């Protein structure tokens, strides 16, 4: 009887150990596949002092509501901590957001005409309008006009597969670094996700770096 109970306890412990160890190992193996990263993006998607002590890399989706909220916080941070801060903006259009990719492409094309920030501000500001639209192309034309872009060049650029490839390359970069939520920020490499975390942990991290 005692031997039998002992055997039962051994089987119980053995099964528990295997069931705990196997998924733990699987998670750590999956987590360990991140690739080395030297983040960069075109100059028109960068803001602030290039030699700043703090570099923020942002992965954003123009159709994500929290990205629009975070954009306001980012602006405040850039003003408050100038000239110690620099921002690099990267695209992360979600597949489940109908117009996310098209707007990222439109913003990239605005960037090629030197109006990336004006255009992206407008996209966040008018998110409620174009996100519900059935003809986003028409709205992109009107936004391009309102930030004084060359409409013809902008339209042509939006159809250029090379521009789509730029957006897709940012997405791949995000995937390689486990960016699976927007907005995601890397503040000198420290990850912060969402506008709430940016306001609390993000600003705390910036202050910590600047006080060093």
């Amino acid at each position: 009887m005692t031997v039998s109970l002992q055997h039962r306890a051994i089987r119980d412990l053995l099964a528990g150990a295997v069931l705990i160890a196997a998924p733990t190992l699987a998670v750590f193996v999956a987590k360990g596949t991140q690739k080395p990263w030297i983040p960069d993006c075109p100059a028109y998607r960068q803001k602030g002092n290039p030699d700043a002590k703090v570099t923020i890399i942002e992965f954003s989706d123009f159709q994500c509501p929290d990205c629009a909220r975070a954009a306001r916080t980012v602006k405040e941070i850039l003003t408050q901590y100038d000239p110690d801060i620099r921002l690099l903006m990267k695209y992360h259009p979600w597949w489940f957001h109908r117009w996310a990719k098209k707007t990222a492409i439109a913003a990239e094309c605005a960037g090629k005409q030197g109006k990336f920030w004006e255009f992206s501000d407008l996209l966040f500001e008018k998110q409620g309008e174009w996100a519900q639209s059935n003809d986003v192309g028409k709205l992109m034309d009107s936004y391009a006009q309102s930030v004084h872009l060359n409409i013809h060049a902008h339209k042509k650029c939006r159809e250029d597969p090379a521009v789509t490839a730029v957006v897709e390359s940012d997405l791949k970069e995000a995937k390689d670094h486990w960016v699976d939520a927007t907005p995601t920020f890397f503040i000198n490499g420290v990850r912060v996700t969402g506008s709430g975390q940016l306001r609390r942990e993000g600003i705390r991290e910036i202050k910590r770096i600047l006080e060093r």
Partner: protein
Amino acid sequence: MRQSLAFILRIILGGVFIVAGFQHAVSPAQEFAAVIEAYSILPPSYILLFATILPWVELFVGIFVAAGYHTRFSAAMTGLLLLSFEAALISTKIRGVPLEHCGCFANAFPLTPLQTMALDPVLLGLAVLAFRHGRECMSLDRWIDQGR
């Protein structure tokens, strides 16, 4: 036949928890923390800790249920988790908290809060079945009890 069905349903229930837990566990905790924050239930200072622990609880409970290990306890745990998820979703609806997605499976399967509110009771039914009949077929519990 009933035993085989109970086994299949137990695997489905465990599988859902394994997928959800694994997705959250491999992703940075900050991402799940942002999802939890959107529910506006927990105080911000506890969110990151909660976001670090919950995926592992989901993962282990899911594996225990699927394998039929301490089946009644693990099925009861899945039931409790499902009830708490449902309560959290209902509370966001009552308070008018806007949620784009429930965040249940990270962004791999972006379910809306309403879809999740419909799915949770179904899974709760599976949890009850697993609690009552989960040990009966191809469970580790049976293998452990063999020596009795």
